């Protein structure tokens, strides 16, 4: 009995030790982090030294001026309106680009490559960069915000939807091809019904992102509640700012919940 047990344990391979490559990799990551911190002279000291002179500001922050939330009612409406318009246009254009960015629905090799490169260029800029560009082009205001978010939304919607198209059941496509239907008809009827639940879910997600982006959009000159924050900050009206921040938190949470409910209900 004991002999067989030792025989068996002799056959069992020992757990291999950690690989040298892993250890070297971790050491390299640690070294890079230390180097980067030294480069920017990273220190948490200002957090403590500035805390005392910031106390008055913090006190103002802790007593939000609630009535201010409703005094800027129009800015709220503008924020939601920007998100709705930008989402609607963005996801629609994004859907069209998605069909061109999947080999399933785009059978031309060069066209597929061109669209892929174009979309990765669109995605390479963050939302705030688009606001700065469009503010330069059309001036400060909600139009700049809408155009910026549309570009941002096209990038996301096209990428997510194209990946969903890649994974559809090919059977209906074969049937459409066998009956001689054209590229657009085949995409509309053999692909779109299959991706619809996922696509609607992406639309809701993008709407959420757009509401959340409203602060950044406004601060950069794209209109909406973010521009109110910008103005109040520059006037040192911290009680107003904190009321708006709390309200944004509530609105984003509410829209998150609503969109989750819609997804469960309809998708």
């Amino acid at each position, binding site marked *: 009995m004991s002999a067989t047990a030792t025989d068996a344990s002799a056959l069992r391979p020992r757990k291999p030790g950690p690989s040298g490559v892993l250890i070297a990799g971790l050491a390299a990551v640690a070294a890079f982090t230390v180097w980067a911190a030294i480069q920017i002279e990273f220190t948490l000291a200002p957090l403590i030294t500035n805390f005392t002179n910031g106390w008055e500001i913090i006190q103002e922050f802790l007593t939000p001026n609630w009535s201010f939330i409703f005094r800027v009612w129009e800015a709220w409406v503008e924020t939601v309106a920007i998100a709705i318009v930008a989402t609607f246009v963005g996801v629609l254009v994004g859907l069209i680009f998605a069909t061109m960015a999947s080999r399933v629905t785009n059978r031309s090799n060069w066209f597929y490559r061109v669209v892929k490169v174009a979309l990765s260029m669109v995605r390479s800029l963050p939302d705030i960069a688009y606001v700065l560009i469009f503010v330069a082009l059309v001036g400060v205001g909600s139009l700049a915000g809408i155009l910026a978010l549309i570009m941002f939304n096209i990038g996301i919607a096209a990428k997510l939807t194209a990946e969903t198209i890649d994974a559809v059941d090919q*059977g*209906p496509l*074969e*049937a*459409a*091809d*066998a*009956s*001689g*239907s*054209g590229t*657009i*008809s*085949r995409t*509309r*009827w*053999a692909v779109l*019904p*299959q991706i*619809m*639940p996922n696509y609607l879910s992406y639309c809701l997600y993008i709407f959420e992102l757009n509401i959340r982006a409203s602060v950044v959009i406004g601060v950069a000159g794209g209109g909406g509640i973010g521009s109110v924050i910008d103005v109040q900050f520059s006037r040192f009206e911290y009680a107003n700012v904190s009321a708006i921040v709390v309200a944004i938190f509530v609105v984003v949470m509410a829209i998150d919940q609503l969109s989750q409910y819609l997804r469960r209900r309809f998708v």
Partner: protein
Amino acid sequence: MIELSNVTVRYPNGVVGLDDVSLSIPDGQFVVVVGLSGAGKSTLIRTINGLVPATSGTLSVDGSEVTGASKKQLRAIRSRIGMIFQSFNLVKRTTVMNNVIMGALHDVPWYRSVLGLWTAQEKELGYTCLERVGIVEKAWTRASQLSGGQQQRVAIARALAQNPTVMLADEPVASLDPPTAQMVMKDLQRINRELGITTVVNLHFLDLARAYGERVIGMRDGKVVFDGTGADADDAAFERIYGRSLTADDVLPGRS
């Protein structure tokens, strides 16, 4: 009229799907193609409508050359060839009516297709085709809610909506239970007789092949090794086609 002369299909991975096949299928004939999986049955059917391009040889359907046809010509040829699949290939998340009208999409301009704006005429065509397979009451049901047999009949209605002269069926009953398989085969036979549509069906159950095949073509390793009437296709002929003795798995369960 389907004409193949010396058609060879070699797939990019080097596998030979069809090996120098010459066949002539006259109008209105009901042909059953039998053979083991990998014998080239599916390749034969998919070569006829150009889903699989022929490597060499010539192939024509109703006088139109399939080999060497342009994309546009190929679409025109395919629009007259209905096709039925083992896995039905319906779009499950839409209505039966939309699925059937998909068969007629080659005639619908793209902007109407995108919006799903069917004319009264197209809907009428949908109803007529569904009536032919006895399932018109399901016209506005989602395809996902139908049973396998009902889905295959919708697929037949979709093929009929093309107003085809040729009907190709690739293992149409392989995923169905025996009674449903018989029903679907009867539908195909009735459509062949009533509308005079040339029909080519791949099967691997030899009793179904004998019962429905006006003509039986046996394939093995990409070659035609048997070509005769259903009556000619006795057990000895099938053993030649299959290259082995017959087993109980070769007939539809619950029949013989």
